[in-house]
Structures are given as C-alpha cells and as structure tokens.
C-alpha cells in the first residue's frame, strides 16, 4: 500500500542480529505513523516492569506515510521509548534529512532492542544492515562524529549520541544531521544504555505515491498557501522562532529566573531582532521545506544552527542572562554534547535558585553567563555538580529538599510560556502525556498571536475545548509526520487530502483528527498503566499559588483545577482522568484493555 513501506526492521543488540517483517497495516491505518505508530508498538513491548535504562526498554524509530514523499516539510521522524526522565511514554520528533533517508531505506519502523556488549554503530543501506565496532568513537562529540561517519545531507545521514547520552544523562538528546535533535525526555540516555553510538542511513527507494497527479496538485496548492501566508513566507524565515521573545515578555508570560517572575528586563538583548541584526549569517532549512526558519548564527567562537526560541529562553530569561553570544555558544555546545537545551537551561536555573536561597552550596547565580558553558560541560560528562544536574531539575531539587523549585510537569522541564499569563498553556502542560511540553498543542497561537483567532488568555471557562482540539491535531500531525509550522499556513483539511492522495485511503479531516485523539488516549492509557494518576496532571506549586506582583499578568495564578475538570469531561474521561469505556470503544482501543 503506497505511503507505507509495510516493513519493520527489528534489531537485537544482544546478538547483533536483525530481522524484518511486515507492518500490521490495520494498525498503520489506525495510528498512521510517527508518534502514533510508535506509541502503539511501545504499548505491546514495554510494560511497567521495565526500567527505562535497562536492555528491556526499546527505541522505536518511525517515519510516516508523508515522510520522504517531497510534500512540504515531509522530512520529520520520531523516536518512541519509555522516558528515563519522566517514566512516561515518550515521543521525540526531529527534522533535518535523516527521516527522509530512513524512509528511502524501505522501512516504516526500526525497533532497537537489547544492549550491545561493547560500543557499536549501525549502518543501514536498504536491505544491508552492518554492525560496526564503535569503541574508538565512544567519547566523541556529535559534530566530529557526524563528519567522521560521512554525513552528506541528501545521500548519507548520521544519527548519534554525544557524551551526555553515553553518560546516561536523563536529559540527553539523540542528534541527527549534526544539529537536529530528538531532544526531550532523555532518548539519548536510552541509546547510551544500549551502547549504541550511531545509526547511519543511506536509502535508495523513492516512496510510492498512490495518486501522483492528485499529489502534485496538493504540492502546488500547499506551495501557494505557504507563500501567501505572512507567517510561513515572512515571519518565520525573516526572524526565526526567537522573534517570540519580545512579545512573550511584553504580555508578561515570559518565565524568568526559574519562573520567579514573568518578565525579563534583558529580553530585548536576547530577542530575535537582536539575533538577526548582529549574529545571523544565513537561513537554513530542512529537506523539502520552503519555510526555512532555521537560523545559522555566528559569534567569535562558534558558527552553527540556532538557537531557537526555547533554547534562547532557557539559557536566557530563565537564568536571567542577557548575553546573547554566550547563549548562542552554549546552544552549540549542547548540540555537540547531545543534551536537551530546554531541560539543561531550566535545570541550571533551578540550581541557581537553590543556591541563591541557601539550599545548595554552590556559586551558581542568576545572571552569570560565564557559568553556562562550564556547567553544561559538567552535566554532559557528569563531573562535579554536573553529575547530579545531568538527571534534570526534579531529581536535583528533590535531592536538595525542594522539589517544588523544579519547574517541570511530570518531571519534564517546561518551556518559556508562563502559565500564569496563559491559562490554556498551563492546562496543556499539565495534561501533556510526555510532561511539560509546548509541542503538544499550540495555545500560544490562540492565546497570544491570534492564530487562527485570538482568544482571551486569562479566560478559564471553555478553554479546555481548545486545548483538546489542538492536542488531537498535534498528535495527528506528529503521526503523518510533518512540521507543525506548515499548519500555520495550511489547514488540517489539506493534510487529510494529501494523506489520501499518497495512501489511496480516503481520509476526511475528521478521520485524521480522530486518529490524533486515538493516539492521545493511547498515550494516556500507557501512563496510567505505568502508575501515573490525576495527581500527576499538575503544575509546580509556584504557578498555582504565587501570583506575579507586577506586569500584565499581575495577580494571576494558573486556575488549573476547574480547567482540568472540564478537560476530563471534554475528553470523555472520568473525574480521575481515566478514559471511559465508551470513549475507548469509540476509538477502537478496547482491545488493549
């Protein structure tokens, strides 16, 4: 069936063997691909008894029916695993080129099980799978390794871990194409626990498309829409994602000093405008992407991709640092070491607050740009205080007696948007199945930017319906897999039409969003099976109890409780957040119970 290769590559590192077998196409049609298919496979393979860093955990790499087709932004892929940071289901998603190459190698899914006795790397050339000794590569940083293994954007693509993954940092990323990352939740540590340093892919097969004429028409339509949208044709290419810094600060929803404030006096100095004026070298883009939001920036010390908004915020406002060159440099360092920028920055900010309050004996202080790079280095290599910081803010703050100072949800550090200034965003973080995440629905668009239409950011009643809809859409897009930025210029309806053209299966818009809802409910079931409960759908006490004393969000705390009740009802779940039988029947998930 076009769209899917209908083939799973299943690798056992214990024996350095592999097998291939057909993808269950009924499952594929229900869960589409990417994040959805990964969650469905993880459900069967990794239960509550499995330690995320044990050989029994798996890495499930997935692409989707649109990946590699040439549809705009069809470069993305996913990795699914049980998170060593949160213990939840984890899907991390990345762009670049590797996902396209993986699809061209002829697989929808690659499962990596077990643990190699010694460091290893894997080379995939369609049906030829080779296991290589990686003893001499162990310890190598990402940039050097990527080059050494022959990265060539359109022909041969490298996915790997850096020192942080080798040292089992629970906030370690898997990197691909040098500077792209499957960042959140610690998938790099899972790869490190398997002694797997890299996976290099060369593919030669173009994905089949069921209705090429209709597909070409959809390419044409999408190109027109992306060109007509000021967001995808001007805003993202011209200023990149960091342009959000000033507006979030302006409305008083820019988390600052470990969420002690909601406005940062140095925001202008770390803004997208500043980055563009002083440090931008050129734009860059992922495979098949006409948007080109990537910034290549340069300081006296480094030149490379980024930083994105969240990375700039994490090492900037969250640490009260207004030194943009230092932020650009620590962002590049994180990429080279293979560590999640959001979690790294927010964990350092947590340690800064612990130190300033006298709970931790260290010299870490807000505003100290000179401390960023050495602290990240220490985290990646588990040296000195970095040995403890490497496992994220919640474990660190708990060790020092103040878990409430970890700005995380379910243990995953939250991004820049302060829920006290955006009520829907708080509900989004609290209910996100992988923990505090901004990519599980776009409330910033609705509550701040007016995309597609502005809603009152302080409104509580009725907010859950927007969150639910956008969570479902987000899960669907993550399963196709394409970039969510495409959705800023192109409505979901077009994605359903192109999915139909590629696969030959008639998907209405509602079918696709229903698949997203199915994925969301499955992820919820997974977390419930792991022992998560209503008490875990929450936010740090600071956001629920401490209102900002000045700025546009003055006097507001997150009104989570009423929104959560409404959310559970809207989802068809009971008062404890457990999906009701009727909902599971509607979604075809009863067979899992």
């Amino acid at each position: 069936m076009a769209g899917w290769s209908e083939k799973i590559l299943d690798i056992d590192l214990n024996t350095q063997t592999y097998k291939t077998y057909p993808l269950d196409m009924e499952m594929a049609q229900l869960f589409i691909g990417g994040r959805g298919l990964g969650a469905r496979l993880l459900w069967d393979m990794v239960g509550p008894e499995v330690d995320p860093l044990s050989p029994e955990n798996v890495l499930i790499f997935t692409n989707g029916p649109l990946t590699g087709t040439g549809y705009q932004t069809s470069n993305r892929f996913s990795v699914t695993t049980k998170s060593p940071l949160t213990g939840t289901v984890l899907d991390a998603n990345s762009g670049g080129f590797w996902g396209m190459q993986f699809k061209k190698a002829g697989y929808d899914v690659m499962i990596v099980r077990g643990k190699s006795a010694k460091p290893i790397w894997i080379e995939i050339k369609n049906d030829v799978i080779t296991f290589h000794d990686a003893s001499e590569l162990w310890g190598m940083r990402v940039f050097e390794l990527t080059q050494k293994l022959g990265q060539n954007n359109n022909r041969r693509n490298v996915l790997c871990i850096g020192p942080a993954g080798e040292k089992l940092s629970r906030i370690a990323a898997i990197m691909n194409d040098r500077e792209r990352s499957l960042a959140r939740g610690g998938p790099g540590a899972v790869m490190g626990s398997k002694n797997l340093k890299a996976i290099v892919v060369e593919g030669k097969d173009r994905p089949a498309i069921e209705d090429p004429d209709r597909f070409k028409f959809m390419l044409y339509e999408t190109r027109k829409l992306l060109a007509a949208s000021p967001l995808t044709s001007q805003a993202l290419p011209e200023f990149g994602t960091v342009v959000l810094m000033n507006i979030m600060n302006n409305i008083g929803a820019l988390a600052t000093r470990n969420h002690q404030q909601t406005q940062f006096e140095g925001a202008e100095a770390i803004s997208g405008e500043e980055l563009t004026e002083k440090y931008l070298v050129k734009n860059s883009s992922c495979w098949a992407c006409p948007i080109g939001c990537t910034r290549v920036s340069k300081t006296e010390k480094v030149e490379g991709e980024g930083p994105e908004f969240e990375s700039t915020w994490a090492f900037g406002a969250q640490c009260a640092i207004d030194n943009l060159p230092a932020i650009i440099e620590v962002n590049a360092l994180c990429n080279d070491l293979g560590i999640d920028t959001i979690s790294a920055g927010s964990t350092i900010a947590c340690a800064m607050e612990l130190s300033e309050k006298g709970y931790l004996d260290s010299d870490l202080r807000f505003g100290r740009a000179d401390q960023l790079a050495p602290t990240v280095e220490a985290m990646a290599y588990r040296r000195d205080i970095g040995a403890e910081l490497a496992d994220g803010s919640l474990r660190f703050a708990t060790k020092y007696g103040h878990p409430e100072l970890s700005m995380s949800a379910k243990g995953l550090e939250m991004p820049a948007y302060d829920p006290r200034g955006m009520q829907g965003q708080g509900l989004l973080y609290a209910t996100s199945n992988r923990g505090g995440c901004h990519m599980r629905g776009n409330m910033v668009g609705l509550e701040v930017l007016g995309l597609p239409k502005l809603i009152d950011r302080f409104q509580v009643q009725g907010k859950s319906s927007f969150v639910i809809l956008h969570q479902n859409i987000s899960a669907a897009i993550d399963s196709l897999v394409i970039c969510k930025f495409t959705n800023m210029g192109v409505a979901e309806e077009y994605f359903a039409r192109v999915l139909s053209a590629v696969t030959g299966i008639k998907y209405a818009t509602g079918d696709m969003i229903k698949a997203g809802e199915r994925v969301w409910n499955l992820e919820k079931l997974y977390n419930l099976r792991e022992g998560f409960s209503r008490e875990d759908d929450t936010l740090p006490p600071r956001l629920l109890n401490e209102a900002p004393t000045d700025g546009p969000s003055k006097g507001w705390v997150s009104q989570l409780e009423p929104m959560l009740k409404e959310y559970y009802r809207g989802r068809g779940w009971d008062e404890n957040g457990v999906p009701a039988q009727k909902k599971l029947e509607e979604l075809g998930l009863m067979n899992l119970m």
Partner: protein
Amino acid sequence: MPVVKLFANLRKLAGKKELSVTGTTLGVVVHELVQRHPPVGEVILQNGELGPHIVVTLNGHNIMDLETPVMEQDVIAIFPPIAGG
C-alpha cells in the same frame, strides 16, 4: 503622550524601535503612526482595520478594538505577523 513600540520588521520600516504618538484612542494613534511611516501601514492595516495576525497590546494586554481609549502614559506595542515555538 502614549509610546508606541515596534517589533520585528516594523522597526526597519519605521527606522526606529519606538516613538511617541499623540492620540486618545488606539485608532487615532495607529492613524498618526502610519501617516508618519506609511510603510508600516502597508503591513499592519487592511482596509483601514488591523490586518490578520497583527498583534497590538496596550500595556501588555491584547487589544483588537481601534476605539479603545489610550492615556498619556500608556505603552502600545505593535507586532507584525510572527510565529514560533
């Protein structure tokens, strides 16, 4: 006099980051702004109204209605279409 702060490409179009503009409603302030800097008007106005995805805040609160009164000490921020995540 209310202060108008400009962001992203509006700065380039106006040649400045902020300016003081006379006016008692948001509409009057915006009208005065685009009189002084016509290229800004081409981005933010459509048929005399704020264009789609134009974000205007008054002291940090999103405002859509051009009839909204403004005071001497108010700060108005205007953003062209922006996006990110």
